[in-house]
């Protein structure tokens, strides 16, 4: 769940930065800081696509004890 919120927040923050840059709300002075943050968010999002969220066996065990 936490991860889900994280990547959802990540893309929201990322898209906010994009719109800020596109709207010209970012000055050249803080541009590099924002671009750095954006690339970090892009990395988080891309990782989410290919990373396994939860251990299947853990869920199965929970099923057995259910």
């Amino acid at each position, binding site marked *: 769940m936490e991860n889900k919120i994280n990547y*959802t927040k990540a893309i929201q923050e990322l898209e906010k930065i*994009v719109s800020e840059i*596109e709207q010209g709300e970012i000055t*050249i002075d803080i541009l590099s800081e924002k671009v750095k943050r954006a690339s970090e968010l*892009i990395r988080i999002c891309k990782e989410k*696509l290919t990373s396994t969220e939860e251990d299947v066996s853990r*869920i199965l065990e929970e099923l057995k004890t259910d």
Partner: protein
Amino acid sequence: MSLYTQHSALSTQHSALTLSQLTAGIQEVIEGSFSSPFWIKAEIAKLNHYPGSGHCYPSLVEKEKGQIRAEMRGTIWANDFQRINANFIKVTREPLKEGIQILFRTLVKYHPVYGLSLQIIDIDPSYTLGEMAREKIETIMKLRNEGLFERNKQLELPLLPKRIAVISVKTSKGFSDFINILENNNWGYAFTCVLFPALLQGDKAVDSIAGQLKVIGRMAEHFDAVAIIRGGGGDVGLNCYDHYLLAREVTLCPLPVLTGIGHSTNETVVEMVAAYNKITPTDVAYFLIQQFHNFSVRVKECQEKILSSTMKMLEEEKRRWEEGCRRLLLQTDNLIKLEKNKLQLAGSRLQYKPGLLINEKQIRLRNMADWLTMRVNQLFVQKDQQLALLDEKLKLLDPQLVLKRGYSITYFEGKPLMDATGLKPGDEIHTRLYHGKIYSEIKLKSE
């Protein structure tokens, strides 16, 4: 009826009829009793149309509260089928198919080999809603009245639905298709599927699927979505998906439900209330992958936009900087030109002015020289006059002139005498006169 009489008589004699004698008897009874056609209403559970021969052998059922009460095989001969089906399509815009209720005109037929069947000679297409459809409508109405119908559809599917609780049968083709597509996707998207086995058709499917939905609901935090996957089975027994209890359980599921029940009949109520009905298991799988694509595209778009916007900003900044530099140069150049002109002007003035100055000074010098000459001459004249005056005075002081006027000078020991002190009688003195000298000896002196 002669058959029954014969039967009882024969049984007492322990003798037997042949099977064909029996079937001939049955045929005689049935076709004798049902000699004229009837109007019957029933549902086509399965159409069984054979395009090769053109004949159709529909499975006809009657249901009550989801349970099958009666079932009979029908026969529609190729000629009849063409005419009936064409008429049916004309009226309902749908071909004859499974899952529909029909009102048909039929002859009850018995065949010694193929058994009892209903030979359908006409269908009334205006009678389209059968008991199944009515049940379905009732289910829908009930769910709507309870405010549940849209409930599952309102759940938000996570951006990346990667943890899927699958309600299916492990050995079914639908399930293996579904898993294959998800696990062998070309983009490396990671899905976690957990199978919750259940019966997927027939009357028992209602409790089976509903039970698993409840189990999944209790551990909803581990999953992003539920997929009901069925495929490879026939289309009979799907009315469980119109069942109120099952449809209700789907609406109550805390996770979005995706359906891939894989059939060609009308949309079932479960599919209607599910958050996403993708019809086939493969389509559910592709739909999930599409969500990943969508997310991936969003991320890529951000990446590209940031790149292009940043480049644009930097270029603009560079352009501004260059523009600034250009203007600075231009301004500086102008300033330098301006100052240069001033200097040149000042220079040319300087060249001209010293001449003037020199002239001025020269004039002043010349004037001063003139003045000096004049002054000197004046002085000379003055001095000449003074000299002349002095000369006059000097002339008056000349001893010769004094001596001429009767004065004389007495010298003692070569010096003029102004005082008698120191002189004693007997000292010789001499006196100079205007003309000549006299030498005397002092006889007496007085002071």
